[in-house]
């Protein structure tokens, strides 16, 4: 049973990261309907910006800040210069997807060329092991969970209570109507990208602290960014958050009785099952395009 609880703790810390990835991507997607595959590139930019920050003599906090700034600038740039251009040229979703994919490949390899592919650590977090009975984890894992909760609550509060947040929700609901009502949709697209990129940076920093940053984390990050959103349902931020935690738990507990090497496939199996049973995701309220 100890093993079970150990796996639950693992799952919660893993799920926390997935939660952050999910809500950051989910916001961007719900507002702009862009399949922002380059969100993975934002993740690696954040991780390596933080690493760079530390290399230049910064304290961990400053490094984290560097990561956030790097991520936001990058996310905004991609929207402003790539996606907006493509949208104006009436690009189909496929075209935008390929362009984002190309961006991800380019960025990851630039970073690999510049930094090498070995894992770059982020020092300075005072790790304290916590043991409850035979279950072992550390304060970093707790911190991950807390960060995820704070970011989620913060985002929900922002969307519900602030003027800009409400405008974003309007755009999520009905972009055409929002435009008619005088909302500058392009500006809010930028805002969504900015917030989404801002949100993913802490996840990048935490993962780097735990495991070190490698360029191919971008692929991993984007995968686990859209999976919670698709499973949770497009348009539902709490849904994506919950789905993130569920995926984390499923992946960890899923290997309780089966060989651990199958872990990678679990999340995908969950995804396929959910889509077969409920194609709009668990909590989604947006019907996918094709409504008559």
């Amino acid at each position, binding site marked *: 049973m100890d*093993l079970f609880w150990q796996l639950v703790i693992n799952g919660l810390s893993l799920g926390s990261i997935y939660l952050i990835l999910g809500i950051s991507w989910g916001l961007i997607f719900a507002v702009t309907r862009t399949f922002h595959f380059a969100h993975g590139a934002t993740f690696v930019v954040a991780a390596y910006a933080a690493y760079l920050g530390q290399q230049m003599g910064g304290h961990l906090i400053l490094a984290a800040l560097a990561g956030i700034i790097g991520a936001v600038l990058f996310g905004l740039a991609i929207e402003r210069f790539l996606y907006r251009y493509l949208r104006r040229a009436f690009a189909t979703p496929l075209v935008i997807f390929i362009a984002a994919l190309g961006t991800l490949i380019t960025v990851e390899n630039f970073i690999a060329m510049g930094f090498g592919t070995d894992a770059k650590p982020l020092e300075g977090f005072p790790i304290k092991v916590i043991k409850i009975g035979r279950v072992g984890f550390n304060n970093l894992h707790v911190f991950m969970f807390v960060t995820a909760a704070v970011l989620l609550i913060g985002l929900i509060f922002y969307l519900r209570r602030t003027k800009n947040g409400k405008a974003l929700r309007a755009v999520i609901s009905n972009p055409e109507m929002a435009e008619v009502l005088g909302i500058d949709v392009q500006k809010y697209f930028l805002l969504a990208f900015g917030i989404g990129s801002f949100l993913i940076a802490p996840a990048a920093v935490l993962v780097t602290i735990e495991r070190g940053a490698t360029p191919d984390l971008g692929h991993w990050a984007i995968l686990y960014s859209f999976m919670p959103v698709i499973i949770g349902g497009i348009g539902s931020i709490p849904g994506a958050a919950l789905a993130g935690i569920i995926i984390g738990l499923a992946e960890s507990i899923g290997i309780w009785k089966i060989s651990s*090497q199958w872990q990678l496939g679990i999340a995908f199996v969950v995804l396929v099952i959910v889509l077969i049973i409920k194609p709009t995701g668990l909590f989604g309220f947006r019907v996918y395009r094709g409504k008559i």
Partner: protein
Amino acid sequence: MKRSISIGSLIIIFSLLVIYSPSTGADPKEYKIGAILAMTGAGAWYGQVMSQGFLTALDEINAQGGIGGIKFKAVIEDHQSGSGAAAISGFNKLVNVDKVPFSFTSYTAPTLSIIPVANEKHVLLLNGGAVGPKLVKASPYLFNNRMLAVMHGLGLAQRAKERGFTKMAALFWNDDAGIGTHKFVEPRWKAMGGTVVAAEAHPIGTTDYKPYLSKIMAANPDFLALWQWGKDWGIAVKQAREMGFTKPIMGIEFTPDAAKIAGATADGYEAVTDYFDPKGTDSWTQKFVASYKAKYKNEPEFYAANYYEGVYILTELIKKAKAKGGDYWNGKALREALIEIKRFPSVYGGYVEFNPEDGTCKKKTALFVVKGGERIFQKYLEIQ
């Protein structure tokens, strides 16, 4: 008098002609060699240090004018961290366009995929990094100047016995090398009176060990054995300690990069590996370290060392084959030379000895302990 002068001049002229005669065709313009390494992808670090290793040697030799006035040139191809297709494409170019008779190789899978071509076209392959059991006897043209993992694994088991452990937990690469090592060690460990309480295979290069460590911790072993290479062991050690795993950890790999990642958590980690110690006292070791550091700033580890020494092995082969006369710059001749010589000086100190039957080698193996981020040599191991 006139006669001796004319005979003398004839002899002189004849000697000069022999010495400075234009290439008979047996001597190539330059010694072009190939290398199939992981230059991109997750394993790009390996490709980097391996190439740095042999490039150091090439530069040293070329700086002295090459061998018999002929310089080396290396052509490096990328197998993208394990893609068989990329390896075959790259090797095809090396063999058919660059016409190399000798190539370095790395990684088990790409090596296996280029073997058919190597056999066909008689290209000598030297592997200094891969450890998979499948490489044993894989081809008459494949030689490995790195000890096989299974031998290190056995050494680790013996050391564990020495320390009085009985319950082993193993964490290893989910591939031929990792699984093969575990399969080799497990029955022998049991024969020594030990048990295996957990055996977790993980994808190469994974960075999240929590699932595997969870199961290992739950099994309550006496120690943890790592059948891992590269930087993986560093991350595994770090995460194990950060999850509160306090039992001893031992492995069959040590790289300074990984030690940096593990930081303080690596203290007490014991490794059974090829005995390459950059701080060693052997004169050749020191020369190599100095040479490498001058170019690349970091200290070399044994991957670089293996490929460095590989070039020097090749020079021995060239000299031997050339002395036999005829067309010597080809895989067949070089291979024959290798089989004849068998034993070469190793940059580790001592010798590396090849077994012509199966392409494996014997080198010094040692036990190291990590203290304060540094690797401290403990003793040599004799592996039974």
